[in-house]
């Protein structure tokens, strides 16, 4: 049932809503990931502003405790799973095939499936707001707060099942990108010629493949405890609550690197381009990234120092955690050495990349502080931790994504965003984020616990909390500036940005902006790590294909299959066997139709 067709010489694919719904083009899927994640970013940001409004003054009654629980749970869950991860996925989709010289990802329909499952999973979790039962047990969902005894409503069910759905989307995408990066590289694109963004994305996918099954198991146990009365997290039956913590953080710590490694790759593209110098120590940056991913898998229990694991475990996890600072530090020095002596252009993208290094370093240093178990016992569950991970995830990952957005926007849409508005966006965000999160170090050290909906005036923390709230609204204003910039660029006149507006070195800049539907008119032969900065660095890619290029048609079976998959969870949460059974049939039919439809690459 595929509407197979040959696009031949056409530069643009088919148009219209149906063509987007059935698309298997990695570029369109990347744009859809980006747009959806951006929407969820605004939702998560709004939740953050509500949290900060409540905390602006002591004994505030803006929201009640129950609502506050839902807000911080959904803020964390949304930002991690529905904003940051899919924003990285947007760049994986659009950029990786272009950077390695491929016509698409290895499995275009699986790619569409990942997107639809992600979208439906995001809607599934947020639908909980409609019935007033949004998840409220924290993004970490510690047992046995999540047991039916303490969380009798559907809140935790929405959370647990929603994360399972999103996990399936991430896993499917990870298999796809691993196969793409290993096997779809253009001739001459050796592993050690791959751009650092592609390399870091590759490490990220390996972390996804190994980490997500573990949380899936933890969530299946939780679901069974809640639905079928199993005793995995029941101390009365002999169960150990630390089982959840171990399984969750076995996933949760690699997840931190799943969020940060892609953005480390992004700034590793931006910094050389705007310094007009090759990345300093390319190979060491790649190895450091792989090492961060590897060690990142062996440090999970530093989230559990307060649980009393004993001196030997504490010592091991403290030392292993501190070890990660070494490859991370290596990268930071390599980025600085890249800029050293370069012809630096302070574009918006470059400003965000430089801010990434600074902010991430601050977050990294506070991270090393609570890598020490005795120190962590003072800091755990306080605002000091909140300050730490917002410096790495907002000051780091989010700034990196903003940098990448301004950098690749002309490649994706063929238009440059306004640099003036971009710099306004940058400075407001930069000031706002430091005003928000820097005082939290002190708020935490002075003893204010996380996740508590209000505090008394006798703690003397009102002025610093008020400053943090002001800062968060500055970030909100900065975001509005960015939205305005996007709309202005969107509505603005057509531009001719050429193939390579920034004078960058990598393969995606060798083709037109936006790229034609088939990407490369002929698959290039790559002869250099920096093909566009090297004499004869790659074979020529003509603007018009010398012979018609076959472009695979779309398919709606990935969408049908994802409806079947998510429908099973809808049936489970509605406790409706008929819904689940119908969805299961849709799922099986979808898989078989997908498997046997003619779909030529």
């Amino acid at each position, binding site marked *: 049932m595929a509407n197979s067709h040959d696009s031949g010489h056409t530069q643009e694919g088919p148009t219209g809503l149906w063509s987007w719904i059935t698309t298997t083009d990695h570029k369109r899927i990347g744009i859809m990931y980006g747009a959806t994640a951006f929407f969820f970013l605004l939702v998560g940001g709004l939740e953050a502003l509500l949290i900060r409004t409540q905390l602006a003054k002591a004994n505030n009654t803006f929201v009640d405790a129950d609502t506050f629980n839902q807000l911080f749970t959904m803020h964390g869950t949304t930002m991690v799973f529905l904003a940051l991860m899919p924003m990285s996925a947007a760049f994986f989709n659009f950029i990786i095939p272009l950077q390695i010289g491929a016509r698409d990802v*290895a*499995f*275009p*329909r699986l790619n569409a499936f990942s997107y639809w499952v992600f979208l439906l999973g995001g809607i599934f979790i947020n639908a909980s707001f409609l019935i007033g039962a949004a998840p409220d047990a924290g993004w970490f969902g510690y047992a046995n707060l999540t047991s039916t005894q303490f969380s009798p409503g559907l809140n935790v069910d929405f959370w647990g099942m929603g994360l399972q759905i999103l996990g399936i989307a991430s*896993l499917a995408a*990870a*298999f*796809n990108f*691993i*196969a*793409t990066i*290993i*096997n*779809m*590289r253009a*001739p001459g*694109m050796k592993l050690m010629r791959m751009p650092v963004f592609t390399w870091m994305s590759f490490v990220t996918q390996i972390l996804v*493949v*190994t*980490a*997500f*099954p*573990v949380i*899936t*198991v*933890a969530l*299946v*146990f939780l679901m*069974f405890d809640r639905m*079928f*009365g*199993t*005793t*995995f997290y029941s101390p009365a*039956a*002999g*169960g*150990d609550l630390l*089982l959840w913590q171990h*399984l969750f953080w*076995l996933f949760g710590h690699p997840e931190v690197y799943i969020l940060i490694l892609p953005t480390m790759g992004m700034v590793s593209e931006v910094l050389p381009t705007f310094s007009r110098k090759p990345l300093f120590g390319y190979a060491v940056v790649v190895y450091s990234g792989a090492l961060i991913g590897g060690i990142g898998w062996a440090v999970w229990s530093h989230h559990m120092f307060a649980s009393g694991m004993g001196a030997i475990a504490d010592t091991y996890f403290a030392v292993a955690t501190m070890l990660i600072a070494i490859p991370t530090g290596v990268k930071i020095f390599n980025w600085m050495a890249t800029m050293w002596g370069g012809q630096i252009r302070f574009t918006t993208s470059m400003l965000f990349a430089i801010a990434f290094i600074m902010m991430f370093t601050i977050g990294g240093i506070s991270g090393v502080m609570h890598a020490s178990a005795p120190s962590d016992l003072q800091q755990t569950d306080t605002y000091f931790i909140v300050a730490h991970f917002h410096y790495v995830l907002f000051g780091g990952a989010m700034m990196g994504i903003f940098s990448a957005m301004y950098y690749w926007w002309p490649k994706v849409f063929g238009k440059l965003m306004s640099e003036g508005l971009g710099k306004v966006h940058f400075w407001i965000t930069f000031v706002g984020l430091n005003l928000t999160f820097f005082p939290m170090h002190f708020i935490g050290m002075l003893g204010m616990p996380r996740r508590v909906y209000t505090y008394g005036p006798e703690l003397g923390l009102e002025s610093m909390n008020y400053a943090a709230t002001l800062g968060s609204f500055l970030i909100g204003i900065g975001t509005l500036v960015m939205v305005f910039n996007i709309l202005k660029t969107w509505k603005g006149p057509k531009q001719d940005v050429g193939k390579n507006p920034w004078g960058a070195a990598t393969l995606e800049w060798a083709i037109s902006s936006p790229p034609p539907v088939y990407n490369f008119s002929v*698959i290039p032969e790559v002869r250099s790590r920096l093909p566009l900065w090297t004499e004869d660095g790659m074979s020529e890619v003509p603007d018009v294909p010398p012979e018609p290029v076959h472009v695979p048609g779309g398919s709606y079976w990935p969408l049908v299959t994802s409806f079947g998959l998510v429908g099973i969870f809808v049936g489970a949460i509605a406790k409706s066997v008929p819904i689940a059974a119908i969805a299961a049939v849709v799922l*099986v039919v979808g898989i*078989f139709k*997908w*498997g046997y439809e003619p*779909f*030529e*690459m």
Partner: protein
Amino acid sequence: MSTAATAHYTSTGLDTRKIAFWAFIGSECLLFGSLIATYLSYEGKSVVGPYPGEILDIPLTSISTFVLLMSSLAMVLALDGVTKGDNKQARIWLATTVLFGAIFLGFQAYEFQHFVHNGLTLSTNLFGSTFFVLTGCHGLHVLGGVIWLSSLLIQSYRNKLGPDKAMTVEIAGLYWHFVDVVWIVIFTVVYLIQRG
């Protein structure tokens, strides 16, 4: 299965689907690893019976284990048949693989029903919770394999499973052997080495 990327240039010379499938098997290792680790860490911690030693039937499960192991041999012969273009061999051994998989599931259904009859359910104790979720998850994997291989058998009868589809069958075989290997681990740690 899709015919994507079969006859194209690839960086490694390997089939792209095979690489993706090995990545999938890698994630499955972590899935079963987490389940088995949970079983082991809760072994002997149940506060009420029935306990494993009272209820697990090693001779009976040895038979079903042997049947599942033999199904892997049948899978190898089926792939050999498809690769050679020998339809008869392919069909006989695909059907055997499916049959042996189904027999294994039959044994498991009997075992589950027998345990429930003897007072061990999902919610009885930690042993019941960990045992049923671990072996049930494996059983679902066997069921998925039986459905997958049945669809290949049907394709063979429609004369659509020629040597050009050898890779499709090989990947199904990879899955089947993996599920088989996982069972050897489960059989060893759950049935043969009982610690409580």
